[in-house]
């Protein structure tokens, strides 16, 4: 309970970060490093977000939809074009604070959202074989951060499940309950371990939100700002997960994608702004359960595919400004099952390698901890 309150900064009289236990691994002021995982639920179309406009087969396959990326930031030796709705992300790429990994995928090779998200988040080889998530297992490797994890969601997402208690927060349209009843509810749950733990976490988080005077804000930019400020606090969160829904575009993809990316861009922009100086100590990874078909379907959308896009951002990103891809090509013969972008880079390898660099951990050892059921996997090197 004491650690939780300290993390949430609810009581200034309590211990500060200086009193946190000394950490067992290398790297100066390791509790200053921040990590944010943004999951795009619904299978985001990487080919539309970072379009391989240098591949002649792309224009052929995508037709009019290919034109909707015109005017966006040109990257990766002019082979790729970033969707123009991603203005801030494009700027970050120019400033060498964003990096892209294309034609990447988790170990999952089927086309169910729910199974795919489970594999991406749990880090297993098969759906529902791992009971905890890789962010949860990362926390086990970062003892000083175990009580400083938060999900911007009403409940703990799969990726963050593990043995540590993760705080959750989601802005509410309801008015806050009175302090009096909150104390009484604590008494009500005193002999119920599950409810008591949930309730303590909820109370502490709301105290923090009240201090920031942000309660009740909605919208992508407000959520990003809230998250950024929670991460920026000296005693605030260090490991965070955010959810972005609505990427499943079976029809009318072009206008929906423009709107969806505008929201994601606003969230990332305000996250970076809210972090302020701490942006240089932050790593953001954006990923989706899988990509979408290369060809447009009969309803101006795309269907569930395989290879997709990962985006990495941060103020001090290693190797930033690049597109990493072992480009498989988009000719019909090059496609997976004759329909999907063939994945050539393992998402797990990218996650493991970038987290190891960010937290000054041994890459091989971290990979083994994060993905115990994929022992053959080596950390990604560009």
């Amino acid at each position, binding site marked *: 309970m004491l650690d939780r309150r300290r993390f949430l900064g609810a009581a200034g009289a309590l211990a500060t970060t200086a009193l946190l236990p000394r950490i067992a691994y290398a790297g100066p002021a390791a509790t200053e490093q921040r990590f944010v995982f943004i999951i795009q639920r619904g299978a985001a179309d990487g080919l539309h977000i970072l379009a391989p406009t240098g591949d002649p087969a792309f224009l052929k396959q995508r037709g009019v939809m290919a034109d909707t990326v015109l005017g966006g930031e040109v990257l990766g030796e002019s082979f790729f074009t970033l969707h123009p709705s991603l203005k801030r992300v494009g700027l970050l790429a120019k400033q060498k604070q964003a990096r892209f990994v294309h034609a990447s995928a988790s170990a999952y090779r089927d086309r169910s959202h729910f199974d795919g998200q489970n594999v991406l988040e749990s880090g297993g080889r098969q759906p529902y074989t791992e009971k905890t998530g890789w962010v949860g297992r990362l926390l086990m490797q970062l003892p000083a951060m175990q009580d400083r994890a938060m999900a911007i969601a009403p409940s703990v997402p799969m990726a963050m499940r593990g043995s540590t208690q993760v705080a959750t927060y989601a802005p509410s349209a309801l*008015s806050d309950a009175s302090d009096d009843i909150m104390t009484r509810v604590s008494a009500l749950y005193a002999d119920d371990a599950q409810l008591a733990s949930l309730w303590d976490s909820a109370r502490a988080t709301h105290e923090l939100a009240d201090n920031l005077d942000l309660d009740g804000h909605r919208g992508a930019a407000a959520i990003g700002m809230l998250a950024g400020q929670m991460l920026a606090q000296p005693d605030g969160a260090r490991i965070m997960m955010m959810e972005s829904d609505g990427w499943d575009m079976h029809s009318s993809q072009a206008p929906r994608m423009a709107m969806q990316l505008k929201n994601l861009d606003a969230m990332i922009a305000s996250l970076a702004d809210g972090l302020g100086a701490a942006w240089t100590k932050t790593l953001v990874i954006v990923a989706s359960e899988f990509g979408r078909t290369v060809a447009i379907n009969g309803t101006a959308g795309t269907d569930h595919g395989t290879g997709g896009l990962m985006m990495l951002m941060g103020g001090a990103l290693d190797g930033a400004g690049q597109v990493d891809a072992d480009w498989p090509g988009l000719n019909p013969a090059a496609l997976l099952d004759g329909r999907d972008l063939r994945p050539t880079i393992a998402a797990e390898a990218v996650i493991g390698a970038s987290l190891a660099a960010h937290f000054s951990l041994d890459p091989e050892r971290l990979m083994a901890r994060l993905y115990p059921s994929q022992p053959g996997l080596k950390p990604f090197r560009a």
Partner: protein
Amino acid sequence: MRKTDIAWSRFGLGPRPGDEPLTDPIGWLRDQMDDYRPDLASTGALASRARINADFYALRTARKQAMQAASMAGDAKVKVAQLPQSRQFRGHYEAQAAVRIRAAVASETPFVDRLVHFWSNHFAVSIDKPLVLGLAGLMEFEAIRPHVLGRFEDMLLAVVQHPAMLLYLDQVQSIGPKSQFGQKIAARGRNQGLNENLGREILELHTLGARSGYSQSDVTELARALTGWTAVGLGNGPVQRLTTRLGGEPGDFLFAPPLHEPGKRTILDRTYPQAGMQQVRAILTDLARHPATARHLATKIARHFIADEPPAPLVARLETVYLEKGGDLRAVYAALITAPEAWANTESKFRTPWDWLIGAFRLQGGVPEMPDNPDQADHQLAGLFAQLGQPIWQPGSPAGFADSAGDWAGPEALFRRVEVAQRLARHTSPATDPREVAGRVFGEALRPATAQVVARAESPQQGMALLLVAPEMMRR
């Protein structure tokens, strides 16, 4: 938990203040299957499909005009949601949601109503799509309620023919590439054709289940077979004009031969000859009776009623009954309520927001009146479920809302329940004694901590709010 509590809450929708402890809990559940009435008295007041359809297209026109007017006036933003037509259209959804809520709160057959909600979520549509907003409730009333005690294949067929499902999973726009219509538009150079969304979800979510052995080719073949299954006057452009010309009342199911892909189809190694709409009927019947479907449905039912990780022997028994009785759901429910696992003395399920709020209303003896603004009652009622994180008919995905504790037992979710409980309890009559309600409803199952905290409350309202969020109310 007493057996009475298990019958009331695990199988039913929670106790009401006047309920007497049950002497025969299994018999109480079994009798409900005879007493259940598929028609809801209040559905007569709801708008018809044709009316909802007409309102939707009126809204679309109004929206277009508003955007044009705004662009002429140089305004960058149009507040579409504030158009009177938008509010009016959303009113259809809110009225349907309120019918569902009030029926659940007043239900004398809460076990069967819980099953209706279960199947409605199994065949989930989500009101994120504009027209589905007006039709989602009708799907539950028209396709789920009549079949909840019947055969699974009849429910499946009714759902797949409902305009809400046809729209939600993009079926209304799917065209057979080699169909009469498909060839015509291909000759004009239009890129419009097959959409495999409904076909995929029928296999993955509605029948066989994920990882049960079907292939991408089965998905595509089912999508091809489904072409022509559409509804009158929905969708856009030439398809809309075609179905309007062919069909009857707007929104009604229609098999449109000009959209249907010719030829035989092969699914799970079985070939289905071309027989118009009989082709899909035959496929759906086989899918409904497939062992993988039996396993998938038995697991979901056991998870919903018994435990997040359902006991394997129970799943196996339900599966066997399902297969032996040709998908007769009533036989499956009979096996469920007599299973010893069902009566184990553990609070094994964390209540979803829907479960919790319906249970809270029932414990208070009904949905509170909102006398300040009766016109807004439906709107506020539907809004409460959204604020708790489970907006009615809006799971956001065809998989429906999740059904295990990990998805609902979050700190923020609990916080919101406390906020809502406070708001609901404001309507508690000062003459109500929450100590007495707690004792009467929970009997010897009442925890000492709950009794004490409720007894020490500063007012009946606060006592009721605390009772509504007590551990006894959070699990079933």
